[in-house]
């Protein structure tokens, strides 16, 4: 069977999850030469409704382009951690925003609690950069994407003055991921 890795980025509309999926898909598809598919699912509300990106990564052309049993999940809310945590492949990597009180998550998962939104707010002055903090953490905690590929994707997609802060968000997330791995 072809190797297939499924990633879900889940949270609320307005948290930039579709954009984060776009960056991840560009990074892996264009700079790591893998096959990818990316889908965004969201309701009609621009803020606070559920929103998620699903990215499938493979060595071969991808047949079904959505997640069936995710290998890696980033959850920005408790509800998402519980919903997708329960559907994940045993041994999968679940990154949860540590400001969310989450209990009862499956013991079969590698669970990392990282203050994604707090890092974005306190260290970068902008909570909306939590999406890129999460991608940086994912690069540190899994084999799915390299930090350099994410940086390339951000540099080509984020214009002008925002490029540097966006790259900084990736790096802050990467460091937080390394720290979480140690502890």
């Amino acid at each position, binding site marked *: 069977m072809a190797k297939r890795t499924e990633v879900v980025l889940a949270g609320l509309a307005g948290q930039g999850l579709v954009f984060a999926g776009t960056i991840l898909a560009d990074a892996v*598809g264009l700079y790591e030469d893998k*096959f990818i598919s*990316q*889908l965004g699912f969201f309701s*009609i509300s621009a803020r606070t409704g559920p929103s998620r990106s699903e990215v499938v990564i493979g060595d071969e052309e991808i047949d079904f*382009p959505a997640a069936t049993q995710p290998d890696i999940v980033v959850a920005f809310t408790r509800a998402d951690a519980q919903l997708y945590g329960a559907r994940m492949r045993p041994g999968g990597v679940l990154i949860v925003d540590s400001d969310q009180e989450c209990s009862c998550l499956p013991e079969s998962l590698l669970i990392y609690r990282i203050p994604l939104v707090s890092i974005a707010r306190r260290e970068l002055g902008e909570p909306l950069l939590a999406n890129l903090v999460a991608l940086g953490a994912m690069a540190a905690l899994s084999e799915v994407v390299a930090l350099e590929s994410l940086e390339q994707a951000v540099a080509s997609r984020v214009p002008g003055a925002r490029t540097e802060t966006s790259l900084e968000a990736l790096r802050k997330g990467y460091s937080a991921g390394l720290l979480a791995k140690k502890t």
Partner: protein
Amino acid sequence: MTTMVLSGNEACVEGALRSGVRFFAGYPITPSSEIAEEMARRLPALGGKFIQMEDELASMAAVVGASLAGLKAMTATSGPGFSLMQENIGMAVMLEAPCVVVNVQRAGPSTGWATWPAQGDVMAARWGTHGDHPAIVLTPWSVKESFELTVRAVNLAERLRTPVILLSDAIIGRLREKVDLPPSVPVVDRPRPAMAPDHYRPYAGGPDGVPPMADFGTGYRWYATTTTHNERGYPVGVDAAAAEGLLKRLHSKIHDHQDEVVLTEGRWLEDSEVVVVAYGSVARSALAAVKQARSRGLKAGLLRLVTLWPFPSQLISQVAQRIRGLLVAEMNMGQMVEKVREASCGASEVWSVARFNGQYLMPEQILDKLEEVRRAWR
């Protein structure tokens, strides 16, 4: 070749522009809006025109007008907008105005559930406009095919002087995948008159049923009317033979070119007991399900409809005679399954797996149904 990561909607624009579309009139609607956005951004630089119209009725009217003036013209919409376009799609059929209508399906009826996918418009795409009319409807299952089928839609519209509908859905329109786009594509232009303006008969079909089309403003004076007309383009009055001739020609120009129009893809059809029939985004679920079924020892195959209309009845009938069951998978309450049942004509069992709650039909549901079929056959 250029490697890009594009959405299905973006790939549709790439295909349209490369095949020569230079006019777009539309009214943005989820999940098709990226097509209008991208057209607005790209067309002016190519000398083309983008117009945001007041609604979808006007959008389709503008597309027909641009087509008569000689441009390759397109619009894009979704459910409710598609309903509003139907009257003028009929106008395009009757005037034989080449054009492409993209419908990125979302969950209906009416405004429905705007951001969620469905395949509920397959019959609307065939019969949405009134009267006896032919329809060409193509449905992509990937980003790459969104590009290829848009090119094909533009070319078929020109070749056969007819509206062509590209029936995408919210999954495929929004899906992003890596694609290699060719720098150029085959381009077909509508037949144009070789005779002098005095001898031009705008609706004389010629040997292949497709009349040459003079651009408005080039000295060929002709009357474009949706009233049933004769070869000279004037109302038939009491001439029943002319009325019948027009209708027959409108149908036969599509029917006689089915080889160019009807596309399907089969996998493992040769050694299958049960074949999943699917189209658009659900064909991706079906492919994954069939692969898993085969790994469990089920003799399953996939028949993917790329062209929905004209419906490939003959192929379905041939497949039905060789196998035990057909399973039709679709994101509606069971629309194409009835056409499949009709075409199989009792030669095989016909089963249905349908999902209509705005959620993607998953491979697992198709697999469960295949297991149910297997249990029933024990």
